[in-house]
């Protein structure tokens, strides 16, 4: 058993050490939604590894051990304990634990109204194979680039003009599909100014691999002046 496990685990450890910080990495969050998910991941990862190792160890031990002879009643009791403990109790505890984190987290990601604040809106329209970005109330139309203010939630209203695409900036938040004649809303927020990458996540034809979006996050002041400047031009 062991030699087979060492190689992949070595590789994955090495890559983990080197690689979490990629520019499109879910594990390198730069916004509250992405941060929550990345924490969730590490929690689930730890729990899963523990369950996996425990079950594998039990299984291998069960195969190697030399059982003393049991009466039928003893064997029945042992067997029932395994099935009820492992098959019912363990999954139910796991599910309850997981949902008690997951449901409130999902709730916080919803585009709910924020008290005392109007959430700015940006429209993004998917095309084969480019992004059209519109700022309502202004005449600004951008192609393949999106400008955001840092530190404030923004609602991205997405739709598509042809096939289904999916809007995704991994370091900021999860993805939302862009579907013709429907508008979906994704609440997105960046912690600090910087450059991020977005990518179409739903297969949309030959150009799918190259359908990328540049996301530029400004400080709120810079964002305001960018808006004014751009409109002036």
């Amino acid at each position, binding site marked *: *058993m062991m030699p*087979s496990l060492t*190689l*992949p*685990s070595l*590789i994955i450890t090495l*890559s*983990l050490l*080197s690689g*979490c910080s*990629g520019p499109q*990495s*879910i594990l390198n969050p730069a916004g509250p*939604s*992405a941060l929550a998910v990345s924490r*969730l*991941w590490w929690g689930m990862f730890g729990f*899963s590894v523990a*369950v*996996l190792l425990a*079950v*594998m160890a*039990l299984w*291998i031990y*069960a*195969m190697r051990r030399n*059982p003393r002879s*049991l009466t039928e009643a003893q064997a029945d009791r*042992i*067997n029932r304990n*395994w*099935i009820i403990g492992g*098959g*019912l109790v363990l*999954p*139910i505890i796991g*599910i309850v634990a*997981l*949902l008690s984190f*997951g*449901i409130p987290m*999902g709730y916080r990601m919803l585009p709910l109204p924020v008290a005392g604040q109007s959430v700015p809106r940006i429209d993004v329209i998917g095309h084969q194979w480019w992004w059209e970005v519109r700022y309502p109330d202004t005449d600004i139309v951008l192609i393949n680039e999106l400008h955001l203010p840092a530190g404030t939630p923004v609602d991205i209203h997405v739709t598509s003009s*042809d096939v*289904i695409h*999916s809007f*995704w900036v991994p370091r900021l938040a*999860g*993805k*939302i*599909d862009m*579907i*013709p*004649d*429907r508008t979906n809303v994704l609440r997105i927020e960046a912690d600090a100014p910087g450059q991020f990458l977005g990518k179409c996540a*739903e*297969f*949309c034809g*030959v150009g*799918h*691999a190259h359908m990328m979006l540049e996301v530029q996050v400004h400080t709120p002041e810079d964002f305001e002046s960018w808006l004014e400047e751009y409109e002036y031009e």
Partner: protein
Amino acid sequence: MNTNNEIRKAGAVLQDEFLQVWGNPSGWRALTIVNHTTVGIRFMVTGGIFFLIGGLIAMLMRTQLALPEQDIIEPKLYDQLFTMHGTVMMFLFAVPVLEGLAMYLIPKMIGARDLVFPRLSAFGYWCYLFGSLILMSSLVLGIAPAAGWFMYTPLTNDVYSPGPNVDFWLLGVTFIEISAVSAGIELTVSILRTRTSGMALLHMPLLCWYILIMALMIVFGFPPLILGSILLELERAAGMPFFDVARGGDPILWQHLFWLFGHPEVYIIFLPAAGIVSTLLPVFSRQPIVGYRWIVLAIISTGFISFGLWVHHMFTIGIPQLAQAFFSMASMLVAIPTGIQLFAWLATLWTGRPVYHVPMLWLVGFLFIFMIGGLTGVMLALVPFNWQVHDTHFVVAHLHYVMVGGMLFPLIAGLYYWLPHFSGRMPSDKLARWGFWMTFVGFNTTFLVMHLTGLLGMPRRVYTYPAGLGWELPNSVSSMGGFIMAMGISMVLLDIVLHFRFGRPAGANPWQADTLEWATDTPPQPYNFISLPDCPMRHPMWDSPDLQATIADGRHGLSEIDHGRRETWGSDPVSGAIREIIHLPGNSWLPFFSALALSGLCISLLIRTYSMALIAVIASLVLLLRWSWKNGAFLEADSDSAAKSGYPQLHSRTFDGPGLWGMVVTLLADGALFLSILFGWLYLRIVAPNWQAPETVPLAWQPLLISGVLLTIATFWHHFIVRRLREGRDDHLQGQLWSIAAVGLAHCCALIWAWSSSSLVTTQTAHDAVIAVILMYQLFHSGLAVIMTALQAMRVAYGYVGKGAPYEIAVVKPWWLYTTAVYWLSFLTVILLPIAWRSA
């Protein structure tokens, strides 16, 4: 001693006589074979070849992705490759191979001589083979489908995918699904109705439970996709809008129909594989499986729950969170039945005394890989996490852990386990171990790191990726692992090929297994058993180790063969008590030619030559009618069939034979299809963004009402004659059947009149298009009812059907009932509901 020898000699004579009736022809006539052993092996070998092709496609993709910004494979081809990889592995490998294994094993495990509809098995195989060849030819021609195996609209409609690529998928896969559904129906009826004497539900080998639930899941799960494919093909070829949002359709409807099939599909593949585990582990643990009842509970609940979680493939399309939470919850709760099985297996090992053979290695590999797949599956069921990793390589890794771990590893374990059964020889231990370790290490190297690739943000279905995003190393590692795994698989293959030549003879029951399939010869004869034993127990081979010899000597039931019929027991679905003798049809050209005619239809629809399609339809209709005309050999089934005292009747003399069960299970599948249509109708009505319904109902209600009344009269009349037959009266039977057919025909005419006088424009709105589909569906069923009844009238005239052999008329009855139910249900939802809706 002497008497024993005499019995042996009598056994040898019996064997010759059985082979005369059951033997398989060679040469060209081998195409006529309907025997389940041969058909099962054909399914498995063909599926194995498609597995290698699918693997080769995967190797090409891994080569392209090994380094960033490579252009070995251009995107156009790459899109075809990933579409075909998924399609081949799902439809051409996983389902057919498992069905083949089930077809091969089930009759042997339940002590039957063949599956209950042998010609349907052969027909299913030919449909599968021809459909697969049509689909694969598109890859050779460079016009393979290129929109992903999930075929999302609008990418797959005629605007964004012109050309025949998508049509190959829709028509080819639908054609292949005929084989899946027919196998599902046949396996269900076989397991329920042909178990050997005394094998009650609670004595069935666990694999039979797994296959029973798998078969029922196919029956309910495949129709939504069949419907979806038909609708999409109608949209592409005939311009009827179902998924076109501008004309009142909705692309999301496709996603619902696809995943309504797609998620159960995963469990359709996993359940038989888990069944292999549940069969092998107790044999190698030298004790009965722990928690038989618990495992049955787990199998049934997996089957049900898997139909309630399809939306977890659609968490990012903007469905309300509360609805998502329902599906998230159901997805997680599947962990309970899976956990029950895992820990029942663990307990079996814990209290048993395990021995080590090669299949056990694959089982341990299965556990490790499948556990990881299951755990990441629970993660993916959590909505916020799903929003991040959906459509990334994390999901690719997850699904390969589930599929390869949950299907391929147990399958290879089973292959090694039943290899001595197929060939009579044992595999080599050394080569087998090498094959396992290479595959295991290669697989994990490929896919364990792929989780990370996905977490680093690499989406699925991209033909290349830029450097500098941290994806280079994990992708190279995955590609290397892929090639190691390919070497491992080829080693397994080599081992299997070599064992036919060099393997040592296996002898009887080499693993000391407990189930009946080891009581046949190895390799088995086409008839499996010369005599059919009583089996009111779970472990017949452990309880009576000399069973193989006593069966071969003809010391059990139904060992008479001088009548020249292929026979097996028909038994009670619950208790397994014998109810009748089922008389099975023999070899026939009809399945082969029917499948050929249908593939002609498939090809002519592909190249849109509708005159040729019409010819193919007529040819298939003629062949299928001929098939039902040569229904069994009741002509030769002489009146003294129940000669031996204590034997029950032939099934053709009863009202409740396997044909009726086959009809009812077929109608369950048909009902699933109809409910999918109704779902589509209501869904579009409620959700489609641009739904347009006319002010008034476009069909006049008077002709519809007349038509419905006529249909109801025909159905009641048919019901009435069946009741009279039960009372033993068949006076004026032929005339009544003709009259029923005539009333049915009048109903069809009234329906056509209603349609032709309506204001439906099928290419304009989804509203009209769906109504047209419902009308077509109704006409198809009504027309078939008329044809079947007319056919019965003719058979009465020939004396094939009547008081003495009432069976066939009873089989047609549920079809009339179903057709009527569908009619009034459609009337309710299409005519009355919108009126109520508007007035509300």
